[in-house]
């Protein structure tokens, strides 16, 4: 490819090379090849994964490898010592300043290089933009469903990266071939991880997106990054501490002046000790339950004013381990355990999604919950360092974790669903263990608790449970 730099530049383009070794190896690589082009390093291979490039021993050691190596030798390439991930495969893309991709090649095996003539053709003026998602055949999707059903009874491989790969075989890429022009989307905790990826994808689909973040600085930084990546000017940030009911009430006042098409409850916390908020609530309960409840309740008229309002609760697979807790949700009479507090409040989110779906019945608003599987997010790194150390190699990317959130928020295929719990674009059971089932009284008590808090914060009358 380095021999083609002149041809590429003649067409007004630049060659940019990304490798997965450390920066020190990049400099040696550049010197060895006398390379006069930008050279970048991605040792964590985040861009490789986001670009959908393959990795695996079978592919890297394909039977055609000797033939490919011989071909490379004939063309003058000389293999030195390997610096980087030996099982990672490469790829070539042509990307225009308007963000369109005009050429895409993901290597299927080592030495699988695309013809240079095709790359140069993709640089010609008027080269057509490729559809972003490659269509998958009905057969591949059916195979994905069968394989998915085989891994579903297990946590690994299901919640992990392999689970996403298997489940995503059944995805229809056309599901997200949609324009969100004119839609207004709100995402809490959107400055990093799954929230950020959700906001980015919704902006990319043309929506107006408001990032609701505790830190004004981090929120605006993320919004600026999304504006830069998508070229959209319709991305902004607002300060919201979802654990603080006064902050939620202020956000409701500010945000309810126009219809809300999408509300994503993503902000989360896993405290390592009991922390009480200004409202006297335990922090996980305030962040996952009381705050989002008040936000949904306050924005209900704005959601109903949208042609098809959608609310997505980002819960967690950890909720499968716990029953709905309404006797001591604020941990006043138990020894505190942050992991249990997290799982209990994530269970409460799934129940609230069902209860709100019932409340919105007869309107165009659809409320659902989902869990993202195990994703490598800053929050997991920070809150569960030991878990992250052990599972790091098998965690999903934040974008993979966000996929079902985006699908529920944006896809017409998810449009008719309400009060359901999704994982990898499929509705799932909400209980795997019999002792986690709650009774009707517990569900009514959760609603009553949340309504009491919300009505006190809003200064109005509580709406009784049905």
């Amino acid at each position: 490819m380095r021999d083609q730099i002149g041809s590429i530049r003649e067409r007004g383009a630049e060659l940019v090379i990304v490798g997965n070794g450390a920066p020190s190896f990049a400099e040696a690589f550049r010197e060895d090849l006398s390379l006069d082009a930008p050279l970048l390093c991605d040792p964590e291979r985040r861009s490789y994964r986001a670009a959908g490039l393959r990795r695996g021993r079978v592919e890297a050691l394909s039977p055609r490898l000797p033939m490919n190596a011989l071909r490379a030798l004939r063309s003058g390439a000389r293999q030195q010592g390997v610096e980087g991930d030996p099982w990672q495969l490469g790829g070539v893309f042509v990307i225009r300043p308007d963000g369109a991709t005009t050429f895409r090649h993901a290597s299927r095996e080592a030495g699988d290089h695309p013809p240079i003539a095709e790359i140069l053709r993709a640089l010609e003026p008027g080269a057509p933009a490729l559809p972003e998602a490659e269509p998958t055949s009905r057969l591949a999707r059916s195979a994905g469903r069968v394989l998915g059903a085989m891994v579903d009874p297990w946590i690994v491989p299901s919640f992990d990266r392999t689970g996403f790969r298997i489940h995503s075989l059944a995805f229809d890429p056309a599901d997200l071939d949609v324009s969100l022009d004119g839609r207004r989307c709100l995402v809490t905790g959107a400055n990093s991880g799954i929230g950020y990826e959700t906001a980015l994808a919704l902006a990319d689909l043309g929506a107006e997106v408001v990032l609701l973040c505790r830190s004004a600085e981090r929120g605006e930084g993320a919004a600026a990054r999304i504006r830069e990546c998508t070229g959209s000017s319709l991305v902004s940030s607002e300060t919201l501490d979802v654990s603080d009911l006064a902050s939620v009430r202020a956000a409701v006042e500010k945000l309810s002046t126009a219809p809300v098409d999408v509300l994503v409850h993503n902000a989360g916390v896993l405290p390592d000790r009991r922390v009480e908020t200004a409202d006297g609530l335990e922090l996980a309960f305030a962040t996952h339950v009381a705050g989002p409840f008040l936000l949904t309740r306050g924005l209900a008229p704005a959601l109903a004013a949208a042609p098809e309002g959608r609310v997505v609760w980002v819960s967690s697979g950890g909720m499968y381990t716990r029953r709905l807790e309404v006797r001591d949700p604020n941990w006043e009479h138990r020894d505190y355990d942050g992991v249990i507090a997290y799982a209990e409040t994530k269970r409460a989110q799934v129940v609230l999604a069902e209860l709100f779906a019932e409340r919105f019945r007869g309107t165009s608003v659809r409320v659902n919950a989902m869990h993202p599987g195990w994703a490598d997010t800053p929050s997991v790194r920070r809150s569960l360092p030991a878990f992250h150390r052990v599972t790091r190699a098998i965690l999903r990317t934040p974008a993979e974790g966000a996929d079902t959130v985006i699908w529920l928020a944006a896809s017409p295929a998810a449009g008719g669903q309400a009060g359901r719990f999704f994982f990898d674009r499929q509705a799932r059971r909400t209980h795997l263990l019999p002792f986690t089932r709650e009774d009707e009284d517990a569900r009514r008590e959760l609603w009553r608790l949340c309504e009491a808090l919300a009505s006190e914060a809003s200064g109005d009358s509580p709406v009784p449970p049905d």
Partner: protein
Amino acid sequence: MRLASRIGAIEVQDPTGAPRRLGEFWKRQPVVLVFVRHFG
């Protein structure tokens, strides 16, 4: 989601270790973005 949006925000490093965002490279002109298997 478009590839450019998906990978544009990802921070990589140049050979000096300085952080660079992939998206900055196709801001002004088209790029041929080559992901190599490894350095060497």
